[in-house]
């Protein structure tokens, strides 16, 4: 019997509402005081392709998902056995093979699956007549004849059935379903969904022996529900909190959600969101706005970022205060795998455009860090030095729903309270007519006092050409050298300014036998894996690289040179962080655990890969097990 340690999965065709029911389940668990980590796996498709959503639940903090599925909810046959029957090259073989011994499979009796044909004799099958139950619920309100129109309710019904297996209190689910259909126009649907889920819950109890089902779920330790959020929501909120007034975007998966989220806040928060004609427009509009006195931002993904690069160089040479670019990575190259996860854009972000120019790149590893770095980015960009800044995430945007850790204080201002949100370094004193204002004045720290169009006496010129302190074009040798030093010197300043805990993280025992080096969202998986290994008596620690430009080379070099054994973990083909570390520190990491199949690392994969390296094996690429 396992209490409050559940790996639950729902699968079905895209558009069948599996994400809605998975999120209802996740939120219901969270409100029941449990900790949740949920991740969505979907195709670049609107309707029909196989998608699935994992929800992992426990009493203690979760930062990753696991391969085994304790309860599988299948809305169609493909979820069980894959797409081999109708594709020349199968993309997957279903999830039956992932079900834990003793686990349960809830499936639609209409799915056309016969458990007798399965070689999994160690798991339990629960065929549920989903449509019949919907029909019953409808008949109760006199609408039995129209049941096909309500097929979309199947996902909620199946969810209800699956929770009966775990003896989960139905009341916890009921309130979240009701919340999901809060709006007045859902009055009828709300009652129907709750009722149909209840019927399914009771159906399981009445028709199956579930007394010894080994995976049980009940209320957890948290008295108050924690915030349960997705990356794009947290980043959007950080932008609001940081005083961002202008966001531009061009639609692209998986970045769009952030801008749409912000679009909804425009009226209440005095934020202007502009949908542009392309990403070149997005970046340049944001640069224009930043120069004109607002905190500006844009969000995109790889293909859009590839178009923005020219604007990034422009922002940098003109020393614009921002904008902040949020890059949600996805599988490349080119259009690549739009909805899949990869960390393939690091090198692109580090040197996106021609010439040498300063910009900041930070790679937060979880929601809390995303909040911090997004918030700080505006201050770093505006207050201090840097013309522009990118944040990059490996798609923690959509597919993952989890607690942002100790993100409990909604007034949390970020780590940098000294730099509260304001337009620092913008000056209003120009000394009147007798003293000329110079936008690119050479100063000891490289930062020139800033004015913005509309300010009295603050007129300036700016150009994407090399320029003099006045902002007029120059090709002079001395001035060129001065200006290059002025701009590039800001990177040194940034390294001094940015707190060390936002530059890198070192987790676990100092005297570890193995040091894992990684960046971005594998952080959670690595930490969970280290915990598992620790329980086995193995000592592993984790160096998380977070600030990518300027790179904290001295500290990283020190840590690596002291380490007993080092392994690089990344979700890309070429070990891009490893290349950065080699260039910046001269330290070559020999062992590399890389994954580039477009899927994130699971905890199990991580444990296996690290155990192998610990045992003296050669690190290998990790491939998601699909059969």
């Amino acid at each position, binding site marked *: 019997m396992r209490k409050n340690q559940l790996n639950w999965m729902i699968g079905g065709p895209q558009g069948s509402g599996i994400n809605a029911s998975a999120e209802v389940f996740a939120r219901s668990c969270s409100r029941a005081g449990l900790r949740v980590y949920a991740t969505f796996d979907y195709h670049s498709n609107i309707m029909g392709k196989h998608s699935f959503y994992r929800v992992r639940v426990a009493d203690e903090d979760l930062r990753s998902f696991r391969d085994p599925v304790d309860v599988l909810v299948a809305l169609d046959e493909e979820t069980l056995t894959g797409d081999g029957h109708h594709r020349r090259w199968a993309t997957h073989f279903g999830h039956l093979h992932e079900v834990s011994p003793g686990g349960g499979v809830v499936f639609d009796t209409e799915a056309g699956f016969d458990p007798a044909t399965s070689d999994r004799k160690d798991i339990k099958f629960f065929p549920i007549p989903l449509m019949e139950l919907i029909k019953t619920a409808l008949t109760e309100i006199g609408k039995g004849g129209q049941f096909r129109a309500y097929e979309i309710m199947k996902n909620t019904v199946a969810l209800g059935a699956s929770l009966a297996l775990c003896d989960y209190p139905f009341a916890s689910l009921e309130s979240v379903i009701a919340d999901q259909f809060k709006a007045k126009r859902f009055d009828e649907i709300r009652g129907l969904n709750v009722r149909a889920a209840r019927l399914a819950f009771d159906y399981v109890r009445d028709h199956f022996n579930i007394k010894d089902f080994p995976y049980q779920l009940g209320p957890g330790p948290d008295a108050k529900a924690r*915030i349960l959020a997705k990356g794009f929501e947290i980043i959007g*909120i950080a932008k609001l909190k940081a005083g961002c007034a202008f966001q531009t975007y061009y639609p692209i998966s998986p970045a769009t959600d952030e801008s749409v989220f912000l679009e909804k806040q425009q009226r209440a928060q005095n934020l202007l969101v*502009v949908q542009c004609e*392309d990403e070149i427009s997005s970046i340049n509009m944001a640069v*224009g*706005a930043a120069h004109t006195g607002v905190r500006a931002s844009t969000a995109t993904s790889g293909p859009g970022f590839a178009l923005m690069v020219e604007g990034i160089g422009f922002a940098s040479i003109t020393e614009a205060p921002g904008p902040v670019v949020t890059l949600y990575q996805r599988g490349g190259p080119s259009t690549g795998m739009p909805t899949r996860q990869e960390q393939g854009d690091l090198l692109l972000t580090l040197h996106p455009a021609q010439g040498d120019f300063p910009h900041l790149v930070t790679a937060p590893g979880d929601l809390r860090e995303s909040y911090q770095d997004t918030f700080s980015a505006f201050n770093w960009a505006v207050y201090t030095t840097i013309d522009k800044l990118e944040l990059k995430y490996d798609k923690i945007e959509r597919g993952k729903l989890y607690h942002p850790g100790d993100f409990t204080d909604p007034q949390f201002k970020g780590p940098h309270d000294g730099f509260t949100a304001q337009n620092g370094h913008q000056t209003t004193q120009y000394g009147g007519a007798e003293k000329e204002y110079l936008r690119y004045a050479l100063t000891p720290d490289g930062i020139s006092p800033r004015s913005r169009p*509309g*300010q009295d006496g603050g007129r300036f010129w700016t150009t994407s050409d090399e320029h003099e302190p006045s902002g007029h074009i120059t090709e002079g040798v001395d001035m060129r050298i001065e200006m290059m030093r002025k701009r590039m010197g800001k990177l040194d300043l940034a390294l001094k300014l940015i707190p060390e805990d936002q530059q890198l993280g070192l987790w676990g025992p100092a005297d570890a036998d193995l040091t894992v080096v990684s960046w971005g969202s594998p952080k959670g998986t690595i930490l969970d894996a280290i915990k598992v290994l620790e329980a086995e008596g193995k000592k592993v620690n984790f160096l998380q690289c977070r600030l990518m430009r300027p790179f904290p080379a001295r500290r990283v070099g020190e840590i690596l040179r002291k380490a007993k054994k080092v392994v690089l973990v990344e979700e890309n083909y070429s070990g891009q962080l490893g290349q950065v570390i080699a260039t910046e520190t001269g330290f070559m990491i020999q062992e590399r655990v890389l994954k580039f199949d477009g899927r994130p690392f699971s905890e199990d994969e991580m444990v296996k890969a690290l155990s192998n390296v610990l045992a003296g094996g050669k690190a290998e690429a990790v491939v998601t097990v699909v059969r």
Partner: protein
Amino acid sequence: MSVEAPAKKVSVKDFRADLHNDWCPGCGDFGILASMQTAFAQLQINPDRLAVFSGIGCSGKTPHYINAYGFHTLHGRVLPVATGGRLANSGVTVVALGGDGDGYGIGAGYFVNSGRRNVDFTYLVHTNQVYGLTKGQASPTLQRGRKTKSMPERAIQDGINPIAMAVAAGYTFIARAYALDVKYTASIIAKAIQHKGSALVDVLQTCPTYNDLYTKEWYEGADLPEKRSRLYKLEDKGYDGVVKDPSDPQELIAKKAGAVARSYEVDPIPLGIYYQANLQTYEEAVSERIPALATTPLAELDVFHRDVSPLLEAMR
């Protein structure tokens, strides 16, 4: 765009920046620069409330010669940058400009989409049929079959019709001027700035260095037996492109059709206002979403004390 008067009266001289000008002698850009400065003085614009944005090219250097906020941006991207500037601070008069290569070639997407938005700015295109700064290749306005002295071969692509394109894109003020007629060009620019919404002024500009086809003499018709100008003013022939009732779709369509028809006249070429309509600007649409913007520029709103706790609480 309504213009805030400066504290003390300004003259053309106040809009001149103290900087050596490196355009070729006789360049049509001098005429456009002088026309801009004349228009700014006519309108009594406060230089501190004026921002001039440009693309890259010979024409792109214009802001450096003007005493105002000056943004010399990227090749083809001037309109997005200018749009960002204008939306950030609606208290600033925004004038954007660039070459015909900049605006109708590499920047064509922004040219079209800016028309859709109708942000309140003026956009001057220096139409000289060549890429000046890269030494005279054909620009998108050079007609098929023509060859300037700087080109090794004849053009085998059609020239575009910027006026018709602007009509289709949705510009609400569309005019054409001639760089060497400073007085007239200044009056058109002044009207464009006063217009509320996106205003395109396509300025025919001579390039004495690379364009030996469309020269001052050609525009003056010096080669014609009757020595008549190849230009005429629309108003002189009784044409009126101004929409009287913008709520009348029939009138809008009729005026647009009239503008397009005139835009295909090649000899003589019409100058003046082809089309003008007072329609909702992007800023007006935006202030329906964000009411505070109706009275305060975005850059001056307090956005630093936002309460995000309801958003976070909703995630429990």
